[in-house]
């Protein structure tokens, strides 16, 4: 993904959809340990038993920025349930993310993690940003989305609920 110049911004970016691609042969999500904004370590394996929305993003990526508010709404809609959102930033630092999140209307309550050398995104085979995976309670990748989405769309929430009920 890239930064789009001002003249392109004059035109509309593609509308954010809601379809996630089901993975026909679910594979185990590669484990990782990354730090959040407060240098607290998070390991994926510690979240077995929860459905995880794992999003790879960067502040300079326009569709990443566009979908983050919907990730926050989704996170709020599933508050207190077995669901967690991790937004894994690519090759940026805390200041860049902090500056970006500070400008949002609603400050995200989900966790930002820092993949400073893109090792985790490589392990997931991420080709471009944003790319998002939905991981089931057993730690398998079940759905994928390439490009921005409206994650609080009822269809996405339905898929998350189904995974939670498995």
């Amino acid at each position, binding site marked *: *993904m*890239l930064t789009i*110049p001002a*003249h392109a911004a004059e*035109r509309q*970016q593609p509308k954010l959809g809601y379809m996630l691609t089901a993975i026909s042969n679910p594979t185990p999500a590669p484990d990782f340990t990354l730090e959040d904004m407060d240098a607290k370590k998070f390991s994926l394996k510690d979240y077995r038993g929860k459905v995880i929305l794992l999003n790879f993003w960067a502040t300079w*990526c326009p569709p990443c920025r566009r979908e983050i508010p919907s990730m926050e709404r989704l996170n709020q809609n599933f508050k207190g349930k077995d669901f967690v959102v991790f937004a894994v930033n690519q090759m940026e630092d805390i200041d860049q993310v902090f500056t970006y999140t500070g400008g949002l209307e609603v400050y995200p309550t989900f966790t930002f993690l820092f993949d400073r050398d893109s090792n985790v995104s490589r392990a997931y085979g991420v080709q471009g940003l944003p790319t998002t995976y939905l991981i089931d309670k057993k730690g398998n990748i079940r759905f994928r989305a*390439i*490009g921005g989405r409206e994650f609080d769309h009822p269809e996405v929430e339905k898929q998350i609920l189904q995974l939670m009920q498995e």
Partner: protein
Amino acid sequence: MPTTTIKLHLLKIICLCLPCTQIHAAELNIYKSNESGLLTWSSKDNGFSIELIQLNPDFVRAVYSRHGLPPDEVERIAGYCVFGSIIQNTSQQQLSYRVSDWRYVDKNGKSYPVKTKAQWLEEWRNAGITFAWTLLPESGDFGIGDWQQGFTTIQIDRNKKFDFIYTWTLDGKKYQGKIENMSCAPASLSTDPATP
């Protein structure tokens, strides 16, 4: 509306699935920014849409300087004809593409491959650069609603026109699209505004 739209209809999309050869009508729109004069080509057909946005060299320099590339590498990529590209699966089926199959053809009819992200990354790795984003991924398998953005780089004299040929596969059939008479962003926006 801040942009001017020029609407064309092309009969340039050909199904490459042998033995049949199908001709499809692609819709091509060209937008010109009233502010910068820069052009955007947008084509949609057979479940695939592509948008190519002229990027001026200073913009490219700014992007890669911000990402920490050394000055000589920044200048090298700014010397290419760079487009912001947005590609999208607009179908209800699986779609795939490979940038290594894409070509551009100069006015002498000579065809050249589009430089892929993998080729750039290999060169960057040799120069000690680990940054791996911003370029259009070299291939993709798109589910319904998937889309992607990234830079597409073409090595051609900035003042020369060319035809851009791209392919994608939908439901097992390979399709080809062609955008004619494309041009690079001018070296300087203030002295040489682009015209369609």
